[in-house]
């Protein structure tokens, strides 16, 4: 009896001991709570961070397409609900404007020796985020459809329009062009890409005064209108998810789409073999005879909240550094994004974003008032896209809406 009891006690203690040793990544205790967008690459990062969970360390992730609606509010509490937000070039400004993220210089110096310097996002001399992937919108096309009409993948938007006309004339697809033209943030990003391609500047240099009511703005709108003529007539309700659904249903052959989301289009889930086997990703297109790609480079990265204890901040830093370390790269995750991690080998589906970087695509402007312009664009393009007002009127409306919002937020007087 005694031997049995001792044996049981020893087993129990050793099991407990083993559990303590299993709290991975070398964190002793802390709470990590991540909020971020929802696509395959972010899932991988969150899973990498969750591998650090264990005895005393709690790791949760809330990944949703509506993350921008909840991250600012979720990090304003003290202590903040989310200890880390996975954000991109523009969404970091919302957090910075409200002073919700902490500088990471100390944590990088103490625990981040493995993080490559190129991944550090430095704003005003302080490391505010660690980037782990690059993203951009580039051409996505159906190889079999282009073969049927005997056209090479378009390099410019004008070539894309010609190809779309041929596809429609051949009776293959009625609405061959796809695009996330839903009123709101989706169409605003398409406008930004196209406007950059036309060589336009958004603001008067050094000020917050908007300057888009010019010939580049009009050319941008006219090109978007021309593209929409080849789209499903419901395009004003199609966000990224609906656009991807249209692609997987085999209704679309040409579109300007995110590299990170194109990954989900080439897998075997959700679409017929003819669709996913023939989906290809090409470089971003130029427009209007220009040489600047009509696209913008984005980085996705993680931040650490300001309103948390230092212990939670340390746990968050280590967990997320682990989630974006070379350990997460394997056959399944390698092609999910253009990772900025050591040991990354681009898969064919990442060719678009790699080409975007090589072609010198401009980075998305990281300005505190850019989101106000985005909102103004997203709210005021539907009338023009439906043919109810002129391009100049739409641009004037956008400028007026932006100016009134910027005055209210104190960027303009």
């Amino acid at each position, binding site marked *: 009896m005694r031997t049995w009891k001792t044996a049981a006690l020893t087993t129990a203690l050793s099991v407990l001991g083993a559990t303590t040793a299993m709290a991975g990544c070398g964190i002793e205790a802390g709470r990590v709570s991540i909020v971020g967008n929802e696509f395959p690459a972010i899932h991988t990062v969150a899973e990498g961070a969750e591998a650090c969970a264990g005895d005393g360390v709690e790791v949760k992730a809330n990944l949703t397409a509506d993350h921008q609606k909840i991250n600012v509010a979720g990090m304003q509490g003290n202590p903040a609900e989310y200890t880390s937000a996975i954000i991109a070039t523009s969404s970091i400004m919302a957090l910075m404007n409200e002073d919700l993220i902490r500088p990471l210089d100390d944590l990088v110096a103490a625990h981040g020796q493995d993080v490559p310097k190129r991944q550090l996002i430095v704003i005003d001399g302080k490391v505010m985020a660690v980037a782990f992937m690059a993203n951009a919108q580039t051409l996505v096309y159906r190889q079999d459809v282009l073969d049927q009409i005997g056209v090479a993948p378009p390099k410019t938007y004008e070539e894309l329009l010609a190809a779309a006309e041929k596809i429609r004339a051949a009776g293959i697809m009625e609405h061959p062009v796809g695009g996330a033209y839903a009123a709101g943030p989706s169409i605003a990003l398409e406008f930004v890409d196209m406007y950059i391609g036309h060589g336009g500047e958004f603001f008067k240099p050094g000020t917050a005064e908007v300057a888009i009511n010019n010939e580049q703005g009009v050319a941008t709108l006219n090109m978007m209108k021309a593209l929409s003529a080849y789209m499903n007539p419901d395009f004003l309700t199609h966000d990224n998810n609906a656009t991807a659904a249209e692609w997987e249903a085999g209704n679309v052959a040409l579109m300007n789409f995110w590299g990170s989301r194109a990954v989900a289009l080439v897998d075997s889930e959700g679409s017929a073999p003819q669709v996913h086997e023939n989906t290809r990703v090409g470089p971003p297109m130029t427009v209007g005879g220009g040489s600047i790609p009509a696209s913008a480079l984005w*980085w996705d990265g993680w931040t650490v909240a300001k309103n948390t204890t230092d212990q939670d901040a340390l746990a968050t830093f280590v967990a997320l550094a682990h989630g974006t370390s070379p350990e997460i790269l394997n056959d399944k995750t390698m092609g999910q994004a253009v990772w900025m991690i050591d040991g990354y080998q681009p898969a064919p589906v990442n060719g678009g974003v790699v080409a975007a970087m090589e072609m010198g695509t401009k980075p998305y402007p990281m300005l505190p008032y850019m989101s106000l312009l985005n909102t103004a664009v997203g709210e005021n393009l*539907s009338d023009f896209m439906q043919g109810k007002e002129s391009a100049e009127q739409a641009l004037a409306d956008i400028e007026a809406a932006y100016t009134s919002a910027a005055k209210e937020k*104190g960027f303009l007087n």
Partner: protein
Amino acid sequence: MKHKTFLWFVLPSSLAMILFIVFPLVSIVVQSLHVAHDQVVTTVENCGPFGCTTSTIIDQSATEALRREQPLGRYAGLTTYLDRRHLAVAEVGDAWRSAQGWRDLGARMLNLPFYKAVAFTLAYTFVVTPLTIILGFIVAVAVNGVTRSVRGPLIFFSLLPMIITPLVGSLILFWMIDARGIVGAALQAVAGDPGLSVKASTPLMWAMLMVYGVWHAAPFAFIIYYAGLQTVNADTLESAMIDGATRWQRIRFVVLPHLLPLTTFIALIQIMDNFRVFEPIVSFASSAHATSLSWTIYNDLGGETRQLSAAAATSVLTVIGVAILLSPVLVRTWREFGRR
């Protein structure tokens, strides 16, 4: 009842009302009179994976000092109410001076976000409310005339549209009216136009939003009218039958007058509810075609921009709008109270 007893009696609900109605009202009024402080911006160097650029950021320490001194923000008076996102006084004045005719003036005013939202909200309220009442009444009379054995299940099915969460119900309808959905395809067949798409057409989208509104709110009218029908005086009905009144005459001269107070009640609740229309616009993703006051507030509050003063001003204008719509009823109630 003695005054003291009365006061103790209403104390819990008064506290709740003060907490959940008075304080928020005061809060939005105060917030709508302030705007954010002038942002102190500095030029900085940003370095990232794609190189270094010169950019601007908000100087947090300078802004922090301002915020601590005046946490509410800069006092702006009625500026927010008069700016382009709200009453747009300057733009309306321009439109009045330079418009050619009423239609042009109307089109220009509808270009302004607040008036666009008000136009849809009012159209929605004044179309959906009477249709709800009429449909609810018809269903109540029909269910009342059915045999008792079937009545239970029939009442359950009639209540279903109201039990379903508005967001879910409108999402279901959203997919049904898609050009490749059941209702969308049926509409295309009926109209003989294969390119017809509800989601791409503003008038059709307005109609569909109102159809959803009536479908969702009719059970409310139905159940109230059904209860009212149970209390109709059986003697009066019988004597009307003996006098040779047809079914329609019976309804018109006995049932309808009896249900008039209930109609006023339903109309009141429905006007208040429909003025706050929001869920269908979100589920139908129809902000390109129709916006409402509640949707404008939600749009201002959410996302990266968080324009709190603008949202507060729109909220105050919505409250004023509801007060205006309900003023006839309020005046009548006040008069009756004064008379007694």
